[in-house]
């Protein structure tokens, strides 16, 4: 039994009087793919943001690799080994695919970002790793294409690629297939399956096919609270979950 | 003691004038998220319009009434041709373009009315002073405070108590939802812009008898108006009032002990307030 890479303990997030998350507990085992699902408004994105550092939780702890991280700034987390993707594609639209990835790689060595006295064509600013990643994502041909000219599916894949550039030990994916065409989804599933070899993944997803296919463990949120946890099969049998998704008898 | 009392009263009087300069700006911003750097130019045009009407009709009152109408008509044109395209763009682009508008208006006024400043006489009815013991105050200033208070109350009633105001407030929060209720939000935006700009015209016309009319009065007013609304919170009606009063009082008190430093104080107060209350005193996030 492998140990927990990420533990969330009694995490609560309030917006005014509104509780987006209440006492959420979560353990993500090293090397696993962990899905977080739940109906709209369940507080998945809030939880995700607390983990990624774009919001600070109101109370509770987040322990990553034995270290408390709930107080860390967003920009500190990639360097610790937590990569994230965004639900709505959030890239640098006027820059090329290669440059996007290169920037993500360069960020791993914070001092490099302040090098202003020479150009970036030299080695060591992530160029090589970015090319490598492009190849891996199957986007070699798009290296010099600006992001805004890429298809939506390609953008989604790049979105995940960006998170990977930090060589994360934990990858946080926010609805990686959101808005993707049916044809592109298998490509994403393949990518995720490959990735499990190198890192732990926590993902929020609506595409149940994807969740059942790739996840080892699933946590179900409803109204900000954890209502069920287990393997995809266990969870799908859980009456509480069914009710949460399909509604109670009326 | 009486000196302090005077400074407070004078500060409040000034504050009301500053409120009048800022209120149109804040309404336009609050409703449409539009930063209008040409606000001061419309203020100056208001003063010129009042001057022109007065020199034709001989009546200050006609000027006071017609000036905002003229400015409103001009604003209608500018909104249709230019401003309409800018609601969705970045603040910085709105600022740069409205600065262009400001320059065109300023140079235009110089072209039309020349470089000699004009002055408008205080109407006979309002000339003179009121005296309470040692404390004297010009009637015309009291008149401005009164008119501003009336405009303020009128605006408040309009915004808070009428259907039109309700729609404006609703539109400032969720323009899409207002459209979904079958209300023409674009028209509403135009009307708000025209109204806000016309208020600048009123301010210009009202102040003309105190400080004269010149092409550069707009720039000063713009600075003050922005400080006022930033202090109070961009978009907040009552914020403009509080901001105006704060600036008025700071100016009144500073001029007592450090006259050269009034502007330093005003800008420092503003900078401090934004540092600690990023959206101004009453601004929404």
């Amino acid at each position, binding site marked *: 039994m492998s140990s927990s890479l990420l533990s969330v303990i009694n995490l609560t997030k309030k917006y005014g009087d509104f509780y987006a998350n209440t006492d959420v507990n979560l353990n993500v085992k090293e090397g696993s793919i962990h899905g977080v699902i739940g109906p709209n408004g369940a507080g998945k994105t809030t939880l995700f943001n607390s983990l990624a550092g774009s919001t600070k939780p109101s109370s509770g702890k987040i322990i990553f690799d034995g270290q408390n991280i709930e107080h860390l700034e967003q920009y500190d987390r990639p360097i610790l080994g937590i990569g994230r993707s965004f639900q709505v594609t959030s890239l640098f639209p006027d820059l090329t695919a290669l440059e996007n990835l290169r920037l993500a790689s360069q960020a791993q060595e914070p001092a490099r970002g302040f090098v202003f006295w020479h150009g970036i064509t030299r080695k060591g600013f992530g160029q090589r790793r970015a090319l490598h990643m492009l190849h891996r994502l199957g986007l070699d041909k798009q290296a010099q294409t600006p992001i805004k000219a890429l298809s939506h599916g390609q953008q989604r894949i790049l979105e995940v690629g960006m998170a990977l550039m930090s060589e994360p030990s934990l990858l946080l994916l926010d609805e990686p297939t*959101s808005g993707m065409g049916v044809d592109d989804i298998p490509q994403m599933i393949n990518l995720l399956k490959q990735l499990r070899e190198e890192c732990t993944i926590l993902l929020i997803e609506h595409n149940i096919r994807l969740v059942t296919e790739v996840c080892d463990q699933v946590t179900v949120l409803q*109204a900000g609270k954890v209502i069920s946890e287990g393997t995809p099969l266990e969870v799908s049998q859980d009456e509480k979950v069914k009710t949460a*998704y399909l509604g109670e008898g009326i | 003691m009486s000196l302090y009392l005077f400074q407070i009263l004078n500060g409040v009087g000034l504050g009301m004038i500053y409120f009048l300069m800022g209120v149109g700006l804040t309404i336009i911003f609050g409703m449409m998220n539009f930063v209008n750097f040409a606000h001061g130019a419309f203020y100056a045009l208001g003063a010129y319009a009042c001057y022109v009407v007065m020199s034709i009709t001989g009546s200050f009152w006609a000027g006071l009434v017609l000036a905002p109408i003229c400015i409103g008509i001009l604003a209608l044109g500018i909104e249709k041709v230019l401003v309409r395209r800018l609601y969705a763009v970045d603040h910085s682009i709105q600022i740069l373009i409205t600065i262009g508008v400001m320059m065109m208006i300023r140079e235009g006024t110089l072209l039309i009315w020349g470089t000699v400043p004009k002055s408008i006489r205080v109407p006979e009815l309002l000339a003179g002073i009121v005296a309470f013991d040692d404390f004297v105050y010009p009637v015309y200033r009291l008149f401005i405070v009164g008119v501003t208070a009336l405009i303020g109350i009128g605006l408040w009633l309009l915004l808070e108590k009428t259907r039109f105001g309700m729609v404006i407030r609703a539109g400032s929060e969720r323009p899409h939802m207002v459209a979904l209720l079958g209300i023409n939000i674009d028209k509403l935006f135009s009307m708000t812009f025209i109204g806000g700009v016309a208020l600048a015209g009123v301010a210009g016309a009202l102040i003309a008898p105190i400080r004269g009319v010149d092409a550069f009065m707009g720039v000063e007013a713009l600075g003050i108006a922005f400080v006022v609304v930033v202090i109070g919170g961009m978009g907040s009606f009552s914020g403009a009032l509080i901001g105006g009063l704060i600036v008025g009082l700071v100016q009144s008190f500073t001029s007592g002990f450090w006259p050269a430093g009034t502007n330093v104080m005003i800008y420092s107060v503003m900078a401090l307030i934004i540092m600690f209350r990023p959206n101004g005193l009453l601004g929404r996030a």
Partner: protein
Amino acid sequence: MLVVSHINSYYDKSHILHDLSFCVKQGELVTLLGRNGAGKSTTLHSILGLVPRVDGDISFNGNSILGLHTHEIASKGICLIPEQRDIFQILTVEENLQLSVKKGSPWEIKDIYRLFPRLEERKKNGGGQLSGGEQQMLAMARALLNNPKILFCDEPSEGLAPVIVKEIVDILREIKKSGIPILLVEQNLRVCEVLADRHYILEQGQFVYECSQADFFSEEAEKMKTKYLEV
């Protein structure tokens, strides 16, 4: 009454809806089902002119409404109860209602208070102070006052406690009884089952299944539900 034929919708470069055609007839309650991101809300928004680019044709009571401004479409009587409710937070409950009153509507504010007694209790409160359920009621009330000829309901049960959901369902039923057709987007299948006349299931911006209420429990329909809706 509402006829949507072969519409394609785009946000920037993303092609969201692919060749959708459907209709809502007088007095009918039709549901659009599908998982998140299937394109249900986008369908509603496309009809209301809130999506930047829509091709195809949409007609309402025989007149094409494609390309009209949102407010023009809305004044023809197409009323949306949005997913986020979009209550005006800075207005009071009563102001929210007054704002929506339109001449000719069969409902007046006093009818609303009869229908939603809670709103009357809270009429002086700001829209921002309401609970989720109250907000949903207010959003529905607002649509009713707006003289609707057809009602679009986007996930009315989302995030609400079961008791409240029940109340909402009752109200929808009452509205339906009054003869106003409803296009309902809903994830809660139970809600759909008790209300709807016909169902459409969407996946990736395309219709994958269409059936009447009678067929909704057929073997095929159950399969479709499992495939496209369930966990």
